[in-house]
């Protein structure tokens, strides 16, 4: 597997595309700014949402049980899964009982986290992702590169070619309107035929036992309402205490994500429709471990708006795939090491620690601080990328020894070419300034 920096190097080798990616996501960030600034209560709402989440995490066990009891009373079947394998087995058993071979699924990062599609494929079940962006990347055998805009790494020419190959659209047609229509027709067939639909969950309400799913396309609803069996998959952290709490979260979510006033559809599933089976799977998969660590528990407050992605100078210029995780960006970089420290040790270093992520986060997660905590933990565990460990030790040693600092400085000023080696990534694709002839100290002494 390529590390974040290696994968980013590939991504930025196409300068034009990198600029497009960077500017497009910045444009989405700007829309978020505009949508939030018109509400004088914006900051108060962020604080309010953050407090609701803090309160929920402090009582998560109670709220989960309250949710379970209500949901069961509503006629929803509740399942618990300790890890990804259990989650996938539960989902498979429900589909197998139905005897379906093809099912539809709307966007759910959690099923990406569990690699559900691959698992079901190994059992002979074909999953059709119905979110347009997700269908595009699924055709291409790729993973989503962004949790809200799954195909943001692609240009319309790419989508045109993919649809030409998989849906038989005319070669060379890259008109978004035309391509979206082709996907609409293609997926409608699947919606009408599918007996099982899987959706994600944005919020699960303990007070009422209902869950809310937000989309702009309407694909979650098309699937869920036409299928005989609806399976909703959620992490245990998606619980909120009260129905009225939804007000503040729905106000924050779409404005933070895309600058929209609200997503087109915010569907509240309370009971199965007549004759329908409705399941909800509550997944842990490391979340309780995260919850037990005071340094990292706040990461569970995330509502997956992706504002931290759009604002991140590193994400915008390195693309989602360079994070080699289903959830990329700043939040992904603090979630992933909890699941596998070693495999994701590079991610907390994929940041400038500028703090922009924490500034836009609608639930006020201290993302950049947690990135910094992870760096310390990974260093301590001896898992930090080798170049970083050596560099940092050298730096610490130099800064602690004034004499060596001075000698080192004068050497490097005279032989600045020494810095421009393949060992020093700072020189890659950057114009570095000329080193001055003398140091500040030398100049000062001469006065």
């Amino acid at each position, binding site marked *: 597997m390529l590390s974040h920096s290696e994968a980013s190097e590939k991504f930025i080798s196409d300068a034009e595309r990198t600029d497009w990616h960077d500017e*497009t996501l910045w444009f989405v960030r700007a829309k978020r700014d505009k949508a939030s600034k018109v509400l004088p209560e914006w900051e108060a709402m962020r604080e309010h949402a953050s407090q609701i989440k803090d309160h929920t995490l402090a009582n998560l066990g109670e709220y989960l049980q309250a949710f379970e009891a209500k949901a069961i009373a509503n006629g929803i079947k509740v399942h618990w899964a300790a890890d990804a394998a259990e989650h996938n087995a539960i989902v498979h058993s429900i589909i197998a009982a139905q005897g379906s071979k093809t099912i539809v699924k709307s966007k759910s990062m959690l099923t990406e986290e569990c690699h559900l599609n691959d698992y079901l494929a190994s059992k002979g079940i074909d999953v059709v992702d119905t979110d347009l*962006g997700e269908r595009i990347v699924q055709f291409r055998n790729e993973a989503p590169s962004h949790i809200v805009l799954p195909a943001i790494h692609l240009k319309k020419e790419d989508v045109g070619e993919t649809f030409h190959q998989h849906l038989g659209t005319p070669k060379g047609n890259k008109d978004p309107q035309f391509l979206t229509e082709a996907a609409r027709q293609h997926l409608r067939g699947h919606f009408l035929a599918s007996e099982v639909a899987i959706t994600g969950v944005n919020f699960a309400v303990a007070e009422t036992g209902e869950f809310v799913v937000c989309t702009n396309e309407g694909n979650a609803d098309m699937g869920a309402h036409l299928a005989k069996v609806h399976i909703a998959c959620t992490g245990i952290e998606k619980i909120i205490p009260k129905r009225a709490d939804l*007000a503040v979260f729905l106000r924050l979510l779409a404005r933070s994500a895309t600058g929209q006033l609200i997503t087109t559809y915010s569907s509240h*599933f309370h009971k199965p429709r007549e004759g329908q089976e409705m399941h909800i799977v509550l997944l842990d998969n490391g979340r309780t471990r995260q919850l037990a660590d005071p340094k990292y528990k706040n990461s569970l407050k995330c509502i997956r708006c992706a504002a931290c992605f759009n604002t991140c100078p590193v994400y915008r210029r390195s693309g989602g795939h360079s994070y080699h995780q289903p959830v990329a960006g700043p939040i992904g970089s603090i979630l992933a090491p909890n699941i596998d420290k070693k495999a994701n040790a590079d991610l907390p270093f994929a940041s400038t620690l500028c703090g922009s992520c924490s500034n836009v986060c609608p639930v006020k997660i201290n993302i950049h601080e947690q990135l910094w905590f992870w760096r310390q933990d990974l260093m301590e565990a001896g898992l930090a990328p080798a170049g970083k460990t050596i560099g940092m030790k050298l730096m610490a040693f130099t800064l602690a020894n004034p004499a060596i600092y001075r000698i080192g400085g004068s050497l490097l000023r005279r032989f600045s070419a020494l810095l421009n080696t393949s060992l020093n990534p700072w020189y890659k694709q950057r114009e570095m300034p000329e080193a001055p002839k003398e140091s500040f100290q030398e100049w000062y002494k001469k006065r």
Partner: protein
Amino acid sequence: MSARDQILGKIEPLEPIKHPGAFQGASEDFDFQASLAVVGARVVTSSELEEIFPGRRRYDKTLDGLSLAEIEVLEIDGEFGVAENGAIWLTEEAMPHRVAPFICQHLVINVKKIVPHMHAAYEELGKVKSGFGLFLAGPSKTADIEQSLVIGAHGARSLTVVIRS
């Protein structure tokens, strides 16, 4: 041990933090029609509606999910609109089938009442009365191809709102 007991067993109660209660201080001066325009819906009078969609179908309980796929224009009643974002609350009681507002090609919604913002909306909703309900804001849309906005992804291709007093 079941996964349930395992998970609940791992969750230690943390230091208690109070729920902040109801949100106070929401702005009130929102314009429902302006928000509808932002989310891509059009507002017409009832006589204009007759001209645009003379052959539209009204609520009809005999329509099932699949037969609704054949419907061009469906008219249903919303419970209320939300001025801050143009969303309209719909419940399954007002639809022939839960999939109705998604599967028809064009959707018409009648709105009689408007609340200023989402906090007022949930106050208005009070206790859960329906097995399924949703806030619907505008026609189905996507921007998944190069961030170009396309109206009519999987759900209705257009939303027409009639505000009846």
